């Protein structure tokens, strides 16, 4: 469905199907209702087919028999009508704009922004479509890319073809908020390195790591946005480029990796669009802190609690993570990725990364 027209039509049909179910329920004298999977940590399962974590079989049904649920469904009906209008007029808007537009919806008006966010997520689950298909724009755009990749972006000002090394400044190519409008043309990369910090992104660029090893550098900018995760997924799936993730060595950074590789609990229904199960974590590992004697800070209480929570998270159930997390709890230390600078500014590009990438088989030297 890369043709926008076709995509919009299919989306409209899906939404109308939902409305039609309610219509028929009411017409038959039944209170309209809707069924959704339960959205908690205890209802996510590993799906062998798609290799991602997605919602399990626990479901909850909501019917319009109470004022609260009825109002909720009324809001959903208004949102569907609003999306239908956007599709028809080829408009788009942010969730926040829709929240303000609901000012005119009387009883269906949203009273808090996360109410509208949650409702759109429900619609994603019901339709099994991403919100981008609804012309709902995220607030944040995606990460920066720098490396041997050529893309063709379908912009409002026409088609633009951009090479992410030759046609961009040092800050790289900025992933737009709707990745579906980007076509991946070609590349000659050995892998994508997704980096947590801008400092490391620049370090690799300055040291010419992208050229020397033909790697695509991607600056995650903290917890990656949907657009960033979708882009990683597509580079991996469509272009078959291996993805590795290089972050700080603390529990919050492991969650960044987890959201890239396994998907997030909040968006488990989107995992098959957003998760890259083959993405590999290359550091900073707790064992790196030990083996490379990295400058480190003490774990805070929050860090320790987060690590313990990860030990009970099914997504961190592998032997690798169990061993590393337990080691970290034992050491009581965490390090940032730039801590490698204590061995000199070139250490990370000359020693650490080549060794790691060879070890996991991405570089064959």
């Amino acid at each position, binding site marked *: 469905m890369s043709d926008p027209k076709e995509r919009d039509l299919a989306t409209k049909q899906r939404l109308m199907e939902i*409305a039609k179910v309610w*219509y028929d329920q*009411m017409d038959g004298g039944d209170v*309209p209702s809707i069924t959704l999977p339960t959205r908690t940590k205890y209802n996510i399962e590993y799906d062998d087919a798609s290799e991602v974590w997605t919602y399990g079989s626990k479901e909850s049904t909501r019917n319009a028999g109470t004022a609260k649920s*009825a109002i909720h469904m009324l809001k959903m009906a208004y949102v569907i009508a609003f999306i239908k209008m956007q599709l028809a007029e080829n408009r788009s808007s942010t969730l926040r704009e829709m929240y303000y537009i609901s000012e005119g919806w009387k009883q269906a008006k949203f009273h808090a922004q996360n109410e509208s966010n949650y409702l759109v997520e429900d619609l994603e689950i019901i339709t099994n479509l991403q919100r981008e298909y609804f012309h709902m724009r995220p607030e944040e755009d995606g990460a920066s890319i720098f490396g041997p990749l050529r893309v063709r972006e379908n912009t409002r000002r026409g088609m633009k073809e951009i090479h992410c090394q030759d046609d961009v400044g040092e800050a790289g190519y900025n992933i737009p908020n709707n990745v579906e409008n980007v076509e991946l043309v070609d590349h000659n990369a050995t892998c994508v390195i997704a980096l947590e910090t801008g400092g490391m992104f620049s370090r690799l660029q300055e040291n010419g790591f992208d050229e020397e090893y033909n790697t695509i550098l991607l600056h995650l900018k903290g917890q990656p946005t949907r657009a960033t995760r979708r882009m990683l997924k597509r580079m991996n799936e469509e272009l078959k480029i291996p993805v590795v993730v290089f972050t700080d060595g603390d529990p919050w950074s492991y969650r960044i990796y987890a959201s890239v590789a396994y998907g997030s609990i909040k968006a488990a229904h989107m995992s098959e669009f957003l998760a890259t199960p083959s993405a590999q974590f290359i550091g900073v590992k707790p064992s790196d802190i030990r083996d490379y004697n990295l400058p480190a800070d003490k774990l805070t209480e929050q860090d320790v609690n987060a690590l313990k929570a990860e030990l009970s998270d099914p997504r961190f159930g592998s032997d690798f993570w169990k061993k590393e997390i337990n080691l970290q709890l034992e050491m009581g230390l965490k390090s940032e990725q730039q801590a490698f600078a204590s061995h000199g500014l070139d250490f990370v590009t000359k020693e650490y990364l080549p060794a790691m990438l060879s070890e996991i088989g991405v570089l064959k030297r």
Partner: protein
Amino acid sequence: MVLADELAKKQRSISVAEFFEKNKHMLGFDSPTRGIITTIKEAIDNSLDACEEAEVLPDILVSVRKLGGDVFRVVVEDNGPGIIPEKMPAVFAKLLYGSRFHQVRQTRGQQGIGISAAVLYAQLTTGKPTLVISRTGAKTKAHRMTLVIKTETNEPEVLSHEEIDWVLPHGTRIELEFKSTMQAKKKLLEYLKYTSVVNPHARFRVEIDDESFTFDRVSNDVPPCPVAIKPHPYGIELGVLKRMTAASDLPLKEFLIETFSKVGEKTAQEICSVAKLDAKVRVNTIQLEQLNPLLDAMQTVKIPAPTASQCLSPITEDLIVKGMEKEFQLDFIKARTRPGNVFGGNSFIVEAAIGYGGKLPSEGNALILRFANRVPLLYQQGACAITSAIANVNWKNYGVSQQGLPMGPILILVHVAATNVPFTSESKDAVASVPEVEREITLALQELGRDLKLFLNRRDKNKLQDDRARAICAVIPLIAQKVGEIVELPPPDTSLIEGRIMRRVVLKKGSADGRIRIRIDNYTTKDQQVSLYDISGDSAADATVPPDFVTEMEGEYTKVWKRTLPAGESFEVSYTGTGGGIVDMQGIAENLKVVVDLDV
């Protein structure tokens, strides 16, 4: 050694009046402000106790008047049985003198200290004697005395004594002058209000300088006067038992039966055999070594609790509710009188009540009213076992939020009635921590908590039903509208849903294109007599069904339609207008009625 002789010369007995003169804060006279409240409280305690004994409905006058400077005159006058002139001096001017200390029964005053301490305090601060008038019956004259306490000996001194005519047939009046301030006025009125709540048979008239207040009675039954009972074996300590046995030459079994509550033939025999003592041995011959096993036996053999109903005078659930209704506006009141119980041989009964809603403040800690033997406790709430028992109940179980104390529009009343209330100090501000008492308070509050929860649930359930009705009748039609728009079809008819789900009478009013449409659906299974009231600026002159009745007032038209609506049928009317106003129907039970104004 000569020194010991020298020291010995200085050793002498100290009078209890001297002791408390020096330590007046121990009796609640630590500040002038507090002194005035303590004085009035002690006088009222005595009045109420006396009226109870005489089975008279108490009518009590309290007067506080500033005499100039910081000197106040306090008067408390009752219609009790009066005091015979021979006893008046000792009752008012001797500490540790009274009728109730040795009795095992519930009274407000117990130690015979309170009112004499007030007299002591008055003479200490102003040097003035206390004036007492008392009359014991219509046939005798009243006696008027001025009294002081001789501190060195704790003996009364009568400065003057005369017989006078008096307006009351019987009763007692006491007038004291002492230094104080009227900062205590608020606390004083609070004290009287709370006293009135737990003494609903009493009337209080209060005069403070030129203001007057009345706390009226809501019950005309004098509560039965508690009867003194014999001590219970479980509450005896070894030293006391030793004293009792030494003073009696009865045989052991008879001694046990005669001396103690709830000990009969069988129990007495059992005690003797457990203690391995001859039932016929004269008790004054029993040695200390044998008293120990005897006491153990008395306290291990199963003996029923003392009959609380005789020696105690609980307020009763009914009168607590009346008392609270009188002084507070509440949505829910429930009181609970627990069965009698015993700690250390003292009978006690716990009573509690919970009030909810009404004019209570909806935020902050619950309002807590503590009482001991019908006397409100005003100070040291934090140090009181009642407070900690309240805090230890898990109120969240009953739908009440809690941070230490329960929070929200709640009033909690706890009354501990006992033959000997365990106060933390002689100033009687707080009940000491006694596990048995705390347990009873907890049980009473838990029972009341369950009742409160039922009330809150019922209130919530009513809300829920209303909520459901609103969903069906007001929101689903809007969903139908919007869904119709999405699927590009006319909106589905939702009346079928309403009928199925609701089983009620539904009134809907709405406007569209300048026309007002009102519809009543009887979804119940019975015929309904409905009067439809529609009050607005529209005259409804062109109504499709003309109203049965129309009135106009300042541009507002009240239109009334009366119909008998058979089960499953509907009534509809429309007219040209701008809508707004009020719509309602009469004749339908509240729980079957749904009114929806679609324009709101």
